[in-house]
């Protein structure tokens, strides 16, 4: 069964915001030991299949399988065998090195959410075709009608669905220990959303802007669909005048120059990214180059670098972007004795405050959710998510000192490595010489040899 993933790009943005919030709260150490052993902070958080079942039992009084069975009975009117599986693991880490008068701070958030489900059902199903809700009919009633009243044909359907989100964000900050100023920041962000569906039953949902289903198309052909949204951006920020180590309150006028090192995207991602950027703009930008770029990247199975492709089309690199800001920075110690650097950036009619703790830090779920714009996550959704996070024990994240905790370090490294492998697999292109071209080349070669031989012998 295939369902369109209209919200994938929103998920990526939401995850990116969460990651940025988490890492912008990462501590900036001032008292790192001046030796070769980096200080390590970190935590892991995740959820297992049994934990999700416990969570669902608390809310609905039944586990995931029972819930799906009950939904099937409610909407399809006959039994559905299903085997759902959900896994989720994230690691948040921070390494602080003191090297040649520089603090090199590497913060990383990586992890994955994986959901798969095997579904099999025998019984009456609607005939293949496109169905639309009747005037005034709710989405629930429409689906119910489709799989009961309209279910007139006997079918045996099976489907394996796989859905995964992988996220990886690394921020490497270099700070001059003597001046206390940030030198540069290397940001590497690598989100991916993958959706696969294999089986003999396809369900295509068309949804309007409000999320209401406008039509459902059903087919019973064997299909194997994969939607792969992947991006890998590496960005370097050269920073001037941003002092983060000091005492009291001071003002800075930071100048940040951004240069893109890498901007690899998959063909399923490129249109969505530009659409998302365009949707944020007040005026639409109609650049023929953008249109062509999207067309070119969409036509290739290989994940291409956006910026390199533009360069190969125009013979010119995309210039860097410079940001300026007015910042007021304060050195602050809270009631628990934890020290922070509070950066208050003046914004249009207000300010944005970033807390940079000096040592281990703690961040709550509401801090993260508050930072996600309402255009990405509605107020209602935010409340539900906050409640759900509370139930599964994710109301706060404690990034504690784990320098002397090898077990915790190992767990973090395992998750990071798993994500590394996934990213590597995503960008490693399996090269295959298309057989049709190999055969054609051989035919042309034989033809050329025959022609040459005939010419040589005077037959032509």
């Amino acid at each position, binding site marked *: 069964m295939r369902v369109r993933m209209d919200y994938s790009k929103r998920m990526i943005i939401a995850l990116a915001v969460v990651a940025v919030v988490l890492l912008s709260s990462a501590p900036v150490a001032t008292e790192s030991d001046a030796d070769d052993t980096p200080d390590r902070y970190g935590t892991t958080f995740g959820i297992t299949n049994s934990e999700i079942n416990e969570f669902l039992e608390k809310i609905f009084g039944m586990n995931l399988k029972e819930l799906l069975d009950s939904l099937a009975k409610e909407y399809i009117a006959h039994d559905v065998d299903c085997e759902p599986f959900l896994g989720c693991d994230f690691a948040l880490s921070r390494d602080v090195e003191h090297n040649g008068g520089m603090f090199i701070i590497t913060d990383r958030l990586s992890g994955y959410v994986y959901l798969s489900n095997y579904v099999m059902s025998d019984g009456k199903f609607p005939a293949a075709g496109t169905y639309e809700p009747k005037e005034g009919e709710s989405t629930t009633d429409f689906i119910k009608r489709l799989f009961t009243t309209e279910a007139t044909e006997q079918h045996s359907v099976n489907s394996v669905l796989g859905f995964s989100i992988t996220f990886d964000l690394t921020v490497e900050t270099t700070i001059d220990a003597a001046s206390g100023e940030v030198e540069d920041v290397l940001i590497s962000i690598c989100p991916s959303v993958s959706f696969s569906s294999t089986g003999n039953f396809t369900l295509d949902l068309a949804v309007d802007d409000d999320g209401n289903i406008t039509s459902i198309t059903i087919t019973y052909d064997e299909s194997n669909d994969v939607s792969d949204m992947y991006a890998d951006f590496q960005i370097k920020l050269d920073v001037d005048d941003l002092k983060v180590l000091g005492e009291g309150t001071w003002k800075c006028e930071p100048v940040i120059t951004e240069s893109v090192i890498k901007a690899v995207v998959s063909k399923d991602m490129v249109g969505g990214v530009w659409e998302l950027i365009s949707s944020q703009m007040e005026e639409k930008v109609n650049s023929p180059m953008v249109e062509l770029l999207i067309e070119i990247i969409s036509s290739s199975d290989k994940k291409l670098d956006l910026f390199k492709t533009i360069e*190969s089309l125009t013979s010119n690199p995309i210039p860097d972007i*410079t940001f300026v800001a007015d910042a007021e920075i304060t050195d602050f110690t809270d009631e628990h004795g934890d020290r922070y650097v509070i950066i208050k950036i003046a914004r249009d009619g207000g300010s944005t405050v970033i807390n940079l703790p000096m040592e281990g830090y703690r961040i709550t779920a509401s801090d993260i959710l508050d930072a996600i714009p309402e255009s990405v996550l509605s107020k209602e959704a935010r409340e539900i998510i906050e409640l759900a996070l509370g139930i599964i024990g994710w109301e706060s994240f404690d990034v504690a000192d784990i320098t002397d905790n090898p077990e915790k370090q190992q767990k973090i490294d395992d998750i990071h490595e798993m994500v590394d492998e996934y990213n590597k697999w995503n960008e490693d292109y399996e090269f295959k010489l298309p057989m049709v071209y190999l055969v054609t*080349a051989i035919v042309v070669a034989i033809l050329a040899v025959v022609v040459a031989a005939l010419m040589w012998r005077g037959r032509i």
Partner: protein
Amino acid sequence: MMDLKNMTIEDRNRAVAMWGIAACVFAAAMGWMLMRFGISWSVADLPESDNMVRIIPAYIISEIAMMPIGAKLVDLYGVRKVLIFGPLIFILGSILSIVSLNVEMLIAFRFIEGIGGGLVLGLAFTAVGKYYEADKRNQCHELMTASFAFGSLFAAAIGYFFTSTFNWRAGFIMLALVMMLGLIMAWKLLPEQEGTRKPLDWTNTALVTLLFGVAAYYTQSVNVDYKLLSVESAIVVVVIIALLALVFWHSKRSDDPLIPMGITLFEKKVIILMFLFSMCGLGLIQYYFKVYLTYYEFDIYMASLNFLIMILGAAVPSLIGCKLVMKTGIRPWVTVGAIVVTISLVMTHFLASESTFFFALCLFVFGAGLGMIVTELIISLQSITPKKDMGQHTGNLMAVRMIGILVGNAVVGAYIKEVVQGGYVSEIIDLSASKSILADIGVHIANDLQYMSSALNDGFTVTVLIMAVVTAILAVVAYTLKRFDLENRCDE
């Protein structure tokens, strides 16, 4: 060639054979530009490599380096003997390119393909001089020039079509098949024609090949590996000058050198004019293409259609010019042609960015001017050249023409890059004033793309004005050619 009713069977066979050679020229010219459009996208199914930028130069360098040899071998062994080697090497290179497993292999095989392409191009224009008398070469030369123009001008669009519809490899299959068809047609119908059978001066051949190869390499590496005004650039130029001196020194001592020695002032002027017109005229064509793509619309097919307008502009003056040049001499054609090119370049400066209509009009006039110059220069030079030395003179002129195109390309490219990068003023995003940072970044990138389009256009329109001044001077030089080609015709 066109008057089929009054033709003998031999004449007809020879004419059809020339169509065969023209097909080979078409394939060789296409090989030059086939994947020029968005190379990293074209070969996206090959493993990533930093050497991707060498795929195009690999063909160009070997093709230009082999052109004088191709022409010279025709003098020594006759057209048919060379005909079998050039196209077959090209076909071999194409087949190997199809099965390339990585970028480096593709570069090597494109180099081999270029060797074949160079032999074909050197041979083709020489063959016209060998098989036809001076006053009957015009139509054949037009055929060859048209094949070269169609091949090189539409290669980008054809390559894009193959890549987006099938795979870049399909383009190489087409090249191999067109070359094979041309080879069979030409070989089957071309009459046997003996060469001088003199031994090839290998040292001289190696030096001349190296000279043209290094010159071609320079045009391909400048702006990519180093800047035009840099130490590396100066070193390569010094090497070229040293090689040039060495070639001259050795050629004077050779019994049968690859490049002609002791040539007349007229021929020297023709070579210089060919070089400079290629630089100021043909070298600009690629930028007309780029400007259309980035300034008007990024539609490669529409951009290529503009070339059709340019060819239409060139067709009538070229047909008349090539027909009459043996009666009037080269002077009026090149002089008037240079003036028309100058006018077209001035028009381009003022009008090309006004609308697509004016852009096309500029290209039409530009084509009309070039139509009076390029083929007429070849016909004129061949009219004073003995048939036995046709390859030596023609091959040299053709290689100079190609180097001229590439130099023009490189100089314009370097200047435009300077304009684009030098004139760029970074828009600064003020976080304190920004309502949406993501939106501001999007607008910023879009503005940058817009800037690059405008800067490319600005750089181009300034360059054409400089080129217009050069072509105006060339008009004066052309006027000094007098009637040498009419008074010194070499009819055999």
